[in-house]
């Protein structure tokens, strides 16, 4: 369980929140604190007050995988292989293990054919897959994706959705503006102006959002 207690960070203000294992989607208007919450869970930012514990451990002591919204902001290296191997190299993994782990993850993500390519020359969707592979290569305990689907088409979103389900990560947290995607999650969090509005089963949360732009069209039409 992810336990958030009395969290304060800039505009973000969450008194109590427990996030179960599985795929969680965080929704809300721009500026509501979704990215901020993800950054706190990744350990990129530290709360001004309050605590975040992931299975009893603070975020900075947890292995986290991170995928930024913008495909070009997930790139450190020019070549796909170097990009995916980077987390292993930074952790001083034994050099003979690195190619094995990289090959395993590219096979899982389906981008073996891209391994020698320059990241800059890839399409937006391919860049997201590379970022995802780099995030998964160290088998993180928590995987965080910040609106990765905003620059992707439906087929690619669907592909990544399946990869997330099969990732093996205990916690997958993503922000999205696609309510159809949000409806398929295990847990849904709605933020607005830095405050937690609703959290729980997607059907329960969406029941509060009927008549708003955040109500999935698929639920409206009953499909």
């Amino acid at each position, binding site marked *: 369980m992810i336990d958030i207690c009395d969290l304060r960070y800039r505009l973000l203000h969450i008194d109590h929140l427990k996030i179960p294992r599985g795929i969680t989607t965080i929704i*809300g*208007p721009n500026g509501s604190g979704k990215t901020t919450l993800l950054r706190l869970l990744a350990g990129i930012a530290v709360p001004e007050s309050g605590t975040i514990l992931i299975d009893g451990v603070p975020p900075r002591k947890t292995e986290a995988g991170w995928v930024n919204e913008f495909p070009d902001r997930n790139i450190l290296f020019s070549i796909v292989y170097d990009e995916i191997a980077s987390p292993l190299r930074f952790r001083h993994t034994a050099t003979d293990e690195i190619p094995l782990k990289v090959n395993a993850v590219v096979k899982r993500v389906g981008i073996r054919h891209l391994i020698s390519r320059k990241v800059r020359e890839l399409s937006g969707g391919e860049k997201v897959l590379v970022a995802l592979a780099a995030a998964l290569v160290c088998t993180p305990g928590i995987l965080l994706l910040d609106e990765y689907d*905003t620059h992707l088409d439906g087929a690619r*979103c669907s592909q990544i959705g399946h990869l997330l389900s099969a990732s093996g990560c205990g916690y997958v947290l993503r922000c999205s503006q696609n309510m159809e995607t949000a409806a398929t999650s295990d847990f849904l969090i709605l933020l607005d102006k830095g405050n937690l509005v609703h959290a729980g089963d997607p059907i329960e949360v969406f029941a509060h959002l009927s008549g708003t732009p955040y109500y999935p069209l698929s639920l*409206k039409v009953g*499909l």
Partner: protein
Amino acid sequence: MRVSLDRICITQGNFSLAADGTFNKGVHLVSGAVGSGKSTLALCLAGMLPPERGTIQRSGIGSTMLSLQFPEHHVTGMTAAEECTSWGCEPDTILASCGLKGHNKTSPLALSRGELKRLHLACVLNNPNDLLLLDEPFSSLDCEEKYAFCTLIAHHTSNITIIFTHEQSVLPKFDRIWEIENGILHDRGTPPEALKTWNSPPPLIKKLIAAGKSPRNISQKDILEAACRT
């Protein structure tokens, strides 16, 4: 007023795109997967990327504007007010219209992704252009902002507006649907007939068509109306 593509071919490295057809007055949707060539076609129509073969004929097009996918690629001003001025817009009016009142001195690059996109779209749509090309205008917008944008577009009836997007849920009504597949631009026609020949419509529209309830157009209102049909 029209833009005619006469057997044009654009090549960039291993990628090539062939396009033939005419964009008349109205709102057009150009759909296609990421990497299919939507942005390339937008650049070509804007005159920024000449085709290798074929010609583009513009009739009655006095002004053209291209809005790129990432709004930071348009920034030239050091403040939000300067950015508005660079588009020929009055800063106070534009900033107020997109919820950025009081941000005159803020650097555009210090704005959040949604704020910058709203500012950018407000500036672009404020100026009348005969040919308006919008590359992924929905990206970085939240659900409410997407609806607001659809409302704005609905009022753009006096020119040629071409929206290049892979957005699946919140869309305005379109007068014509185009699709880029396997390096070729296909004219799917006008809704509702176009929906039958559209190979990759949004999943909900696909389900409705399969259920025999093809919507008249692809806005949320049309989808709801179709779903409620008995």
